[in-house]
C-alpha cells in the first residue's frame, strides 16, 4: 500500500496527502499550527477530495519522514479533540451556566423570579381563555 507521504530529498521537502473527507480543513490548521516553529507549511489542492500539505523544514537537519508521521498523529489528535468537543458542547454549556449562577446569586434569583412570572402569566392566559369560553356558552 503506498504511503500518502512523498519525501523529496533533493529539494528537502515533504508532501503529505490528506483526505478532506476524513480530516477537515479546521483540523489541518490546528495540527499544522503546532509545527509552525519547525517547518514552513503550504497547503495546495490535491487530487479528488485531497489536500496536499507541503512541509519545508526551517533547518536542514530535520528528519522529514518522522515529521510527516508526527503531523498525521496530530491530525488524529485534533480530529478526536474536535469530535469530543462537539459531542460535549451541551454539557459544557450547562456546567458553565451553573458555574456563573453559583458565582452570582442575584442572577439565580432573577432567573427564578422570571420563571415564576412566566408561569403565572401562562396560568393567567389559560384561566382567561377558559373564562372567555364559559362566557360565550
Amino acid at each position, binding site marked *: 500500500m503506498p504511503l500518502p507521504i512523498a519525501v523529496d530529498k533533493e529539494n528537502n521537502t515533504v508532501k503529505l496527502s490528506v483526505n478532506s473527507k476524513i480530516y477537515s480543513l479546521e483540523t489541518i490548521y490546528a495540527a499544522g499550527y503546532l509545527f509552525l516553529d519547525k517547518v514552513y507549511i*503550504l*497547503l495546495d489542492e490535491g487530487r479528488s477530495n485531497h489536500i496536499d500539505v507541503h512541509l519545508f523544514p526551517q533547518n536542514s537537519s530535520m528528519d522529514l519522514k518522522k515529521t510527516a508521521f508526527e503531523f498525521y498523529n496530530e491530525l488524529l489528535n485534533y480530529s478526536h479533540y474536535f469530535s469530543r468537543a462537539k459531542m460535549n458542547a451541551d454539557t459544557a454549556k450547562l456546567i458553565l451556566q451553573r458555574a456563573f449562577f453559583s458565582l452570582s446569586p442575584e442572577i439565580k434569583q432573577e432567573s427564578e423570579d422570571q420563571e415564576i412570572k412566566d408561569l403565572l402569566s401562562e396560568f393567567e392566559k389559560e384561566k382567561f381563555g377558559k373564562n372567555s369560553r364559559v362566557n360565550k356558552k
Partner: protein
Amino acid sequence: MTYPIQKVKDSYILKLHSKLYDPVILSKALRGWIGSRASITHYSKDCQIICIKTQKRESALQLANHIFAFNRVNG
C-alpha cells in the same frame, strides 16, 4: 512533484487556493507584506487561485506560514 512555490525568473510565486485560505482572512494577513516584501501578481478568472510574488524564497515561505497562522487564529 509540483510545488505551490515556483521560481519564475528572479522571483518566487506563491500559489494560494481560496478554498484552503479564506480570501477575507488572506487580505488581512497580507497587510504589511504587500508593497514591501510581496506583491499580488495574478488572480485566476474564477478567483480561486491567488498568486503572490516575492523576491526571496525565504520570504515566500515565511509569508506562507504567516497566512497559515492567521487562518488558524482567525478562522
